[in-house]
């Protein structure tokens, strides 16, 4: 009885929090609720027996996204104050008095509920005992080179998806750099010795943690993405504390770091093609080693990309 109760409350809280986050009158509070929602979702993934995803969701889904949105909010507030000269008033909530707006809002609400009903009707009609691809995946697991089924799917069975996905990552950072020039957070370490000393041992710890996660990914929940997320966290901390500025001065190195994931994966695919005649078809038996190499490269570029996403633009003074 207890687990149902637990799930029920979790679901209810998630839905309520989602509504609050998006329709809260005060934007700042909304963002905070959004981050909380992220964490709760991580809990939900655990309940749904998806540890890999819980890790990723916590680190990337709520952590990084929350940080990005917060910094964006702060930037916008500062610019609005500078421009309009009046204190950052409470953003007008959804209940503006304009009658036409209300009408369309009510209509949209009704339509959304109707959509939800249809979706529910369809979802509930799904067969209770759907077979899914678990059986095939487990059958093919031994010669996939890794024991963690999720990593096997990610980097072997559907390696093509992951290739494109890392491409998306690179594209995102290229897009962001094309759009804006990054703004350095103003923190100056000299006044904050405590922070400096904390960072001095936290950052290496995080780096080692990322490496561990990468290694363990082959057999247990973990892998390139989760490791990358950890690395990104470390990078964000470095940026916040102003340490990262020196690191990012040499453009070429940073850019290579970003593209190493795609390059290695692409080249590996090409070599595999030459070797076995199939795109991304690892030579029999060596799959594990290939996957590790690819994952390592992916780890570096994911970490760097997600970290620089926080910067919100291309580094460098030009």
């Amino acid at each position, binding site marked *: 009885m207890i687990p149902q109760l637990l799930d029920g409350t979790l679901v209810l809280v998630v839905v309520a929090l989602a509504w609050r986050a998006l329709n809260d009158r005060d934007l700042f509070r909304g963002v905070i609720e959004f981050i909380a929602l992220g964490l709760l979702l991580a809990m939900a993934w655990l309940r749904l*027996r998806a540890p890999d*995803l819980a890790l990723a969701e916590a680190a990337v889904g709520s952590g990084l996204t929350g940080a990005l949105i917060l910094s964006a909010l702060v930037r916008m507030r500062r610019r609005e104050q500078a421009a309009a000269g009046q204190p950052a008033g409470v953003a007008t909530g959804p209940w503006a008095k304009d009658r036409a707006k209300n009408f369309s809002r009510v209509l949209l609400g009704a339509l959304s509920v109707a959509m939800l009903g249809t979706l529910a009707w369809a979802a509930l009609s799904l067969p209770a005992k759907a077979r899914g691809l678990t059986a095939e*995946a*487990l059958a093919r697991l031994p010669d996939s080179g890794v024991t963690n089924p999720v990593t096997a799917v990610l980097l072997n069975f559907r390696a093509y998806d992951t290739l494109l996905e890392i491409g998306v990552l690179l594209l995102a950072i290229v897009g962001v750099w094309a759009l804006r020039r990054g703004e350095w957070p103003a923190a100056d370490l000299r006044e904050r010795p405590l922070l400096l000393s904390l960072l001095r041992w936290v950052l290496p710890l995080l780096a080692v943690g990322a490496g561990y996660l990468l290694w363990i990914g082959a057999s247990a929940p973990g892998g390139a993405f989760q490791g990358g997320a950890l690395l990104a966290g470390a990078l964000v901390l470095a940026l916040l504390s102003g340490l990262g500025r020196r690191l990012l001065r040499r453009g070429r190195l940073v850019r290579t770091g970003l593209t190493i994931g795609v390059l290695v994966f692409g080249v590996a695919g090409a070599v595999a093609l030459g070797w076995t005649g199939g795109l991304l078809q690892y030579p029999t038996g060596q799959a594990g080693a290939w996957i590790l190499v690819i994952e390592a490269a992916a780890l570096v570029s994911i970490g760097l990309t997600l970290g620089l996403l926080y910067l919100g633009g291309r580094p460098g003074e030009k």
Partner: protein
Amino acid sequence: MPDADPRLYLLAGLALFAIGFYSLVVQTHLLRRIMALNVMGSGVFLAFLALALKAAAPMPDPVPHAMVLTGIVVAVCATGLALALADRVQALEANEETPAPEEPPSAETGSEPEDAG
């Protein structure tokens, strides 16, 4: 701990999707919209994982898990790109209200100041 009931989380996911879409369309502030998109994404991923749980033979179906992981990464990229773009647009809006708009909004595209997205 016995498995959670997949249908419950499926419905939760669909609910999140609906709420996200509603807010995306209703809200005018860019950040709220971006958050709405994230919530919609999470809703879909919740649905995916609920389906994965349905076929929990020895373990939940790893394929949806991989898909969701890819989805999450794509969502983050989307959010990063959206925020950068929203920032540039908001910067445009901000210095437009100031007396010297550097480039008058051209009449053709008829973009209302308040509806930025």
